[in-house]
């Protein structure tokens, strides 16, 4: 039988697209399930992918360049747009980097409120992902449930922060305001509903024979690949590695919360979905723990000098937090002026969608490309920030 793969000359596969044996197709840039635009240039033979190139740049607004020309406080509306479904991680990290360079400590209550906000945004982002994952395998029903339920979480954000998507709730020195009256009762109601919804998702999606048949064995990540490709978060945990920034380098009040790092060993798309399903439960549990343990009163922010003329002492730092996709980091350099010298965003999608996806897709059936791509949980604006 003739080999499916073309000969490799000087490290590159050589084949003639006009021979009618190979076809080049573009998948994207629009995908349901991947929040943002990113396209895959696939060379296929029959129905198998033999080469993939990820193309990004559809969302490039030059965030890092914009931040070099803005005062620190003016950067807040920019940073939250780097990740649409989960903007709070960006806000937290930018504020935390500023606070670390300034050497200020935020009040106890503000830390709890920040952690609560981060966990709620993780919950919203996971709900969106579970819907996208099931949609990629042809089950639109779960997507409709979860996207609808995400709106209830957004309602909570609206009540707490005044905005649904981009909250800008965490400001340097703390958070903007305390919890409004009656909000905790609403939150408990939404969290109870979310955990009921997750049980239904388990019946419909994780126990579904078709979903299992298609997702098991798809896009296997082995433990050796994890460091080689810079894989973090659930994608690394599905290979059996216990890595979670919240446990390893605890920030805010995560060392006072009780949770276990979820792991799987199979490393395929199905185990990644299972991990994310369990981590959604974990987020709900952590929200409940935070609400129970949070101090009932106290200052929510410290007083800073006029933030429009705030000068940050010269220095450089790197701060990280655990987002739904894994380690999210901000590298900030200050030269002592009112403008950041350089802010680099380390989004977890950067290594997942570029180097890893290009290699994982080789040999995959073209029908499973969407499922595999979504199972890595990519948000393209992080790549081209």
């Amino acid at each position, binding site marked *: 039988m003739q080999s499916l793969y073309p000969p490799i000359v000087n*490290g590159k596969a050589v084949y003639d697209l006009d021979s009618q044996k190979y076809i080049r197709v573009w998948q994207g840039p629009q995908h349901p399930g991947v929040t943002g635009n990113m396209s895959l240039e696939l060379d296929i033979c029959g129905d198998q992918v033999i080469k993939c190139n990820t*193309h*990004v*740049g559809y969302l*490039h607004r*030059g965030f*890092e*360049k914009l931040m*070099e020309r803005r005062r620190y406080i003016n950067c807040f509306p920019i940073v939250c747009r780097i990740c649409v479904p989960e903007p709070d991680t960006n806000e937290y990290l930018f504020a935390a980097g500023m606070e*670390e360079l300034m050497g200020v400590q935020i009040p106890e209550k503000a830390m709890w409120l920040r952690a609560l906000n981060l966990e709620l945004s993780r919950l919203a982002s996971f709900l969106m992902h579970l819907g996208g994952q099931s949609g990629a395998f042809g089950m639109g029903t779960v997507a409709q449930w979860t996207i609808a339920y995400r709106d209830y979480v957004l309602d909570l954000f609206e009540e707490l922060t005044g905005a649904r998507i981009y909250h800008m709730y965490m400001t340097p020195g703390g958070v903007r305001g305390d919890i409004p009256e009656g909000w905790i009762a609403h939150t408990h109601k939404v969290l109870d509903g979310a955990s009921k919804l997750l049980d239904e998702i388990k019946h419909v999606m994780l126990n579904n024979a078709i979903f299992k048949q298609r997702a098991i064995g798809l896009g296997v990540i082995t433990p050796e690949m994890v*460091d*080689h*490709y*810079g894989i*973090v978060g659930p994608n690394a945990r599905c290979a059996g590695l216990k*890595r979670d920034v919240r446990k*390893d*380098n605890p920030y805010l009040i995560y060392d006072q919360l009780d949770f276990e790092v979820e792991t799987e060993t199979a490393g395929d798309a199905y185990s990644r979905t299972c991990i994310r399903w369990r981590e959604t439960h974990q987020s709900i549990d952590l929200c409940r723990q935070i609400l129970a343990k949070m101090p009932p009163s106290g200052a929510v922010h410290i007083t800073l000098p006029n933030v429009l003329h705030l000068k940050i002492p010269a*220095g*450089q*730092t*790197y701060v*990280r937090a655990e987002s739904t996709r894994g*380690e999210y*980091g901000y*590298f900030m*350099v200050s030269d002592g002026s009112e403008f950041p*010298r*350089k802010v*680099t965003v*380390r989004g977890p999608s*950067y*290594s997942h969608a*570029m*180097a*890893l996806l290009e*290699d994982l897709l080789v040999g995959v059936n073209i029908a499973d490309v969407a499922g595999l791509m979504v199972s890595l949980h990519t948000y393209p604006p992080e*790549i*081209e920030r």
Partner: protein
Amino acid sequence: METLYKELKQYFDVDEFSVQKASLAFLRVPKSQLVSLLTHMKDIRGYTHLVMVTCVDYLEQDSFLLTYLLHNYSTHCDLGIQVSISRQNPVMDGIHHLWEQGRVYQRELFEMFGIDFPGSPDVHEPMILEGWQGPPPMRRDFDTKAYSEATYSHRPRDHREPEEYMKQQLYPED
């Protein structure tokens, strides 16, 4: 971190060591020793995770400062290895043989700062800015306004008042 620095000092020309916090430190290394130091850190010291590669443009010193941030998963410490290269001849050795995602960072650095990494796969392929004609845009001497005025033309603005215009379109008889 201090002990690590003292041990590294015996093998490499590292200097300008600074501790930012208990789990994060930065040090400077000459350009020629970077790849061997990264290999040493990865293979022997357990700094197996390449967190990110970034560049800061110091226009006033006529240099680029590259930062390679490594993370050790057993001690949960980060080490930022920094190397200063000339702005006039920005060429650097690649690290794509150590970490697979290194080639993506190198592609981005070539596109955004014009730093060349000879031998890195697809390093000259456009990544984000497809069809870009001008100088590398993340350099500090890149004038955003002048570039956009030279490259893009103004769309003539419609000076008609929207209220009047719509009235005429919808109810011409009034």
